[in-house]
């Protein structure tokens, strides 16, 4: 008897129709995808991108080589050589090297910095063709990364 009721119940196609209605409704809905290289996504202000050195109003490095970021970094990607400059009481980073290939973008360095001298900026297209391009020196770290021109 149960077999027969199951057999009859199988003709109740409401469950299948309900699902089909959902997909059909979405068929006429606006899609939500972003056509990436053509349309670009703007990160939110707190986004953790590439490490950048910041300058003060006078165009001087804010960094005074306290090494807090070096100590805070879990993957040892930052290394600083402090230097002296005339007319500046504080030390300044003669070399500020950053190996982006090992960076995990955790933001511990920025958090450790007491002088607001570094920032993880909003760049997210960080791929490079050469491994050497991931090694950032002080001069490269102020500028935005040169954009690779994607061809279609």
């Amino acid at each position: 008897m149960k077999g027969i009721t199951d057999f009859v119940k199988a003709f109740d196609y409401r469950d299948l129709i309900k699902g089909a209605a959902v997909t059909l409704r979405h068929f006429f809905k606006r899609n939500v995808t972003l056509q990436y290289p053509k349309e670009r996504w703007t990160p939110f202000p707190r986004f953790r991108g590439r490490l950048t050195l910041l300058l003060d109003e006078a165009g001087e490095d804010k960094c005074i080589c306290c090494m807090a970021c070096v100590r805070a970094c879990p993957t040892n990607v930052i290394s600083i050589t402090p230097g002296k400059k005339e007319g500046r009481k504080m030390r300044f980073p003669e070399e500020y090297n950053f190996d982006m290939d090992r960076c995990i973008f955790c933001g511990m360095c920025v958090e450790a910095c007491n002088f607001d001298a570094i920032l993880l900026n909003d760049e997210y297209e960080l791929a490079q063709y050469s491994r050497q391009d991931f090694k950032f020196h002080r001069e490269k770290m102020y500028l935005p990364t040169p954009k690779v021109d994607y061809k279609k």
Partner: protein
Amino acid sequence: MDFTMINIVIPTVKILIVFTVVLLSVLVMTYAERKVIAFMQVRLGPMRVGPWGLLQPIADALKLFSKEDIIPTMADKWVYYLAPTLAIVPALLTFLVVPFGDQTTFFGLLKHPTSMAISDLNIGLLYILAISSVGIYGILLGGWSSNSKYPLLGALRSAAQIVSYEVPLTLAIIGPILMANTLSMKGIVEAQSKGMWFVIPQFFAFLIYTACAVAETNRAPYDLPEAEQELVAGFHTEYSGMKFAFFYLAEYANMIVVSAIATVVFLGGWLPVPGLAFLHIPAIIWFALKMGFFLFIFLWLRATYPRYRYDQLMAIGWKFFIPVALINIFVTALLVL
């Protein structure tokens, strides 16, 4: 039967036209599938190659042509070569009897009106059923000859599935055949031109046919032989390049075939929708529209439903579809008598 020039030229031209159209529609079908499913999934689908990604199927075809042809070391080489051919040839052969429209003179081009089918066999349906069963050997041999475990499992599933779904599929068609009293594809359409389309009196047969057609063509939710989440790619896991493309082509050609049969048997072939005859839309357009609708159902099902399990699939085939189809035949026979 006189072997005049025209009797050779016309079928040859027809064959060329049909095959070109079928292969082109396979291309269109791959594009349509990706687009339709993408839209159902709030995506856009291919957009890069050509405007709205229209050239994507051509890019895919080129890619498949230029890909390396890999043969597994332990494969049974000859069978491995044979299998894709066995899959695609029957799929294309079935188009021999599909009538895409009524008899036509091609706008007065020909003296005598000729059929829109390559050949109008009087056992057209039987021919299709017979030929399409051969296609399974391609899958079976392809899976077996790869000498790999996933394809083997896929092939086993496929064999079981197609064997068990051939039966209800055939049984579902018997109802309309009884009503039309003929096996000729043309005759079935003509039978529908007098009364109503067979989809209304034979509604259950139509449902069973749809379900079994999906199963026959290994499409979701009955796509067990190539269930990627379980068997990676099923029977064609080891295939690459053109040989893979043949399987792909065969699958889509089969989809078009079963849609054509559905159109002829249930949806009135090239007949216009009742009440819309005044529009004077050519018969072939009606046929294409109906086929398109049926193919859309294929895609719609794929986008909506989960996949059955192997044993459940068999259970449904034998315990549900076959009894319903038999009851349907019984009732139809009683009414026809």
